[in-house]
């Protein structure tokens, strides 16, 4: 079977125009390599550390999933407290955990960003905070309604309940994260979801709200990742790895070529910066299926940044990093060293802008990059050569070079960091 496939691939394209093709071993051999990797990785997984294990729970803040009724009673307790304050003529104020970057801490043992314990007081009677305080009160009352009615709404819905007050969805979204922190629950527990963004395709079967979904039979586009992770369960898979793709274009290429049939895998993308649902979904897959996660991102600072958001969490939502981060993601490509290794032609590389270089240098200062010497080396190379390239740069060798040569070769050589 593998031979047959190989012959077909050969007849499709000329090996001269697709460099390194001759280095490829047969699919069966590659599969064998992959299987050995997968089995060793799944056996080595242990129970993840928590803040309590490191005796950091006093100085760091973390939220947890709360049931609807406990969210409701937390809100009610808070509102009663506010009412007491108002009736005593003192106005009212919220104590909001600070989400500024100075209040973030990267914990190497956990390999993720957590929130420290600094808080700011948000009083109503101050000109600089009156707006945010009012919006916070409004969001609290809206979430309270959601709890009573037991329904889910999107962030956009929430914004449209009072456009005049919120002015801009960015503001209501930011306060929503504040409310999560105040109540000490995850954002999903507030019954507020974001619109679907991520998609998944490949060797995965799971139940969505009771319906069984087979991701190999979802057509070319794959299955949209459900915004509400509570609905997802019963994950089964015979995949050997999870392939995380930054860009939609590369995802479509792999999905159409049915890459997951040649090498059993699950392909996921969030089309750029990952949303909460995709991150939760990836985490769940990793935890339940115990598969290695390989990332295919652009060779630029933003590619690595996206990778780090999956791996260590974003600063904006560090309060929930325990649920949102997927440990041990490997950087498969496109890495700065690949540009020369795979002889990507000059015309497909782009010069980095001043901003790019600055972002790259800033990344070098980040702890989550420093902990991985391989990444530091690659990033140094990028900043030094001042060149970047997108995944699509590989299309210069033919549109299917990515799925037929580059990825198989990478897998065969176990070339990930």
């Amino acid at each position, binding site marked *: 079977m593998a031979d047959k496939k190989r012959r077909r691939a050969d007849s499709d394209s000329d090996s001269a125009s697709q460099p390194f093709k001759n280095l490829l071993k047969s699919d069966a051999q590659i599969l064998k390599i992959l299987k050995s990797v997968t089995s060793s990785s799944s056996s080595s997984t242990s129970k993840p550390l928590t803040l309590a294990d490191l005796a950091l729970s006093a100085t760091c803040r973390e939220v947890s999933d709360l049931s609807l009724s406990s969210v409701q009673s937390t809100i009610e307790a808070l509102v*009663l407290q506010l009412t007491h304050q108002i009736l005593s*003529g003192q106005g009212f104020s919220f104590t909001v955990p600070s989400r500024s970057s100075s209040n973030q801490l990267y914990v190497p043992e956990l390999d993720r960003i957590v929130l420290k314990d600094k808080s700011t007081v948000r009083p109503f009677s101050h000109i600089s905070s009156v707006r945010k305080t*009012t919006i916070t009160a409004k969001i609290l009352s809206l979430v309270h309604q959601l709890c009573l009615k037991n329904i889910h709404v999107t962030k956009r819905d929430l914004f449209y309940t009072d456009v005049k007050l919120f002015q801009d969805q960015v503001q209501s979204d930011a306060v929503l994260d504040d409310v999560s922190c105040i109540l000490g629950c995850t954002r999903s527990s507030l019954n507020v979801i974001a619109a679907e963004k991520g998609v998944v395709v490949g060797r995965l079967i799971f139940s969505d709200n009771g319906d069984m979904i087979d991701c190999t039979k979802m057509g070319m586009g794959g299955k949209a990742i459900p915004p509400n992770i509570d609905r997802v369960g019963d994950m089964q898979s015979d995949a050997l790895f999870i392939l995380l793709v930054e860009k939609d274009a590369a995802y479509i290429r792999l999905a159409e070529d049915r890459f997951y049939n040649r090498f059993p895998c699950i392909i996921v993308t969030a089309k750029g910066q990952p949303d909460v649902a995709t991150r939760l979904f990836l985490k769940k897959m990793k935890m339940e299926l115990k598969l290695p996660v390989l990332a295919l991102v652009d060779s630029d600072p933003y590619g690595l940044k996206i990778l780090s958001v999956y791996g260590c969490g974003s600063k904006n939502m560090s309060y929930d990093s325990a649920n949102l981060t997927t440990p041990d993601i490997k950087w498969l490509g496109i890495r700065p060293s690949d540009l020369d290794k795979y002889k990507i032609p000059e015309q497909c590389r782009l010069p980095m802008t001043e901003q790019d270089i600055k972002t790259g240098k800033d990344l070098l200062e980040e702890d989550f990059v420093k902990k991985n010497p391989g990444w530091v080396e690659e990033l140094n190379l990028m900043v030094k050569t001042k060149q970047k390239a997108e995944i699509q740069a590989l299309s210069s060798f033919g549109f299917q070079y990515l799925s037929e040569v580059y990825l198989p070769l990478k897998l065969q050589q176990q070339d990930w960091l």
Partner: protein
Amino acid sequence: MESESPTETKKGKSKTPKKEKESILKQKSPAEFFAENKNIAGFDNPGKCLYTTVRELVENALDSAEAISELPVIEITIEEIVKSKFNSMIGLVDRERVDEELYDDYETAKAREKRLEKEARAQEIQAKNAALGKKVKEHAVSKSSKGRGEASFYRVTCRDNGRGMPHDDIPNMFGRVLSGTKYGLKQTRGKFGLGAKMALIWSKMSTGLPIEISSSMRGQNYLSFCRLDIDIHRNIPHIHLHEKRDNKDKWHGAEIQVVIEGNWTTYRSKILHYMRQMAVITPYAQFLFKFVSDAPDKNVTIKFARRTDVMPPVPVETKHHPSSVDILLIKRLIAETSKQNLMQFLQHEFVNIGKPLAERLIGEMGPEFSPKMAVKSLTDQQIVRIHQLFRQAKFDDPSGDCLSPAGEYNLRLGIIKELHPDMVATYSGSAQVFEGHPFIVEAGVSVGGKDVKQGLNIFRFANRIPLLFEQGGDVVTRTALKRISWNNYKINQTQDKIGVFVSIVSTKIPFKGTGKEYIGDDISEIASAVKSAIQQCCIQLKSKIVKKMQAREQQERKRNLSKYIPDASNAVYNVLQEMAKSHASKKKRYEEGDADILQKVSDHLITKETLYEKLTQHVEKVDYEMALEYATQTGVREEPREDIYLQSLDGKGNFFDFHSPIFVFRLFL
């Protein structure tokens, strides 16, 4: 020749015409050169010529008045002369056109048809618009394109109260290009001895009329009158009339009158801008600008009144800084010096070389040099050696004492007077050095004002003259646009009316290009001095702006806080109401204090209005407390006072004095 090989033919051919044409070696007088390349001096087209003429005359007048420390009073008049009047002036009879088709503006039958058609259409549209009740602007009478024959002529007169000129020097001062009194190393407006002469050359080229000069010096009992033009080929004055007249009212100064071709319509705004900016940088001068024509509605009269009698000191002539001289200049200095030996020459002809340094320098030059050697006997090689040493040795920077900046006071006054801004800050930098020439950068930044457009309005001055052209490449424009982050100073670059004034004075302004129009952006010393001067102004403004914003915040605090009371009380009350419901239906149990509140909510004892009132009371209390705190912190502040300038009255009129115990009120009749 044709039978010869091609290479030789080429050679031969190229040689023959060369020999024929270039065998006569021609020489050009400086006047001829500038007549042919008048754009170098800013005489590009008739409009610009009019502008430059005005500019040169005004600047000469200012220099002249300042030279004798007299507060300048300058009158400049531009009189339009129509063609018929011009012709009668020069004694040319107006002739009717006989052969109409000969002229460039002759309208052929076809063109006429086209024009009539177009006019008819325009009228139709106008009638339609009028019928619809639309407001139409008066349709301008279609201007016939100005042919070259339709030139307009102007008589430009400039009268000042300056030093005047010695009777015998007048012809040479106007009739000889590149002769002047301002060649020394000194901060002056003019530099090359070109301005007034270029105006004369232009008048000779365009109208053929001579220039007329009246002048008298202080204490002189006669008035010199001179009518002259210039012999361009020989670069010498050609005197028509040169006589002494009575000086009845003891006037001193100069009045220069020249008739030139120009274009008032297109350069009107430039000329007025120039006068306005000149008034900004020289608030101690009084300008009267008049434009006179046959059409009274086009006439302009603007008086820029004097606002101060504090004048910057007269710039003093200084000696050269050793690092700024070249070989030619050293040779000239040697030729001109009165000192005998090398030691004295170094000490006296340069700044910043004292006796010990001169000794060390001579020691360093080599064994063939000695302090006592005659300076005039230096060989060419030895001079090169001196030049090289000057380049490499370290000297103290020249001081800025020889410069005469406008001064913060004058700059500030000028800005306030002409722009009436809401806020203004000025800064005067210390002297810095570029290639051995000291320079001082002064800056002013204003916010708001009348007749100021939104965004950045940039005013540039070099040696106290406004620069109007080539704004895009100038160091000031670029710095203000690109290198100042206005946001940091709470200034909105696009919304606020910002005035940026930068005045640079130096013994040598490094102008870019041929005209004295702009200073390049490539001199890092000047660029950084400009940047820091503007920043210093912005820092001063920032504290003012922040205070203003705080004051505004004080006033609007209550309103801004109260605005949110309904939303906040609604949000809290909605949750309370839901809780009260479940409390009433005994779904949930609450602690005593809380249960009490929920009960009151159910009984309508606590309503939305209760919360609203409580919050309103709280806001009022907070507002009162904050206002009190603000008042105690800031105290009673007074705006800085500014001196007002009262113009002195001339003449001793009749007056009455009304006496009171504390003051005298004087009424002039």
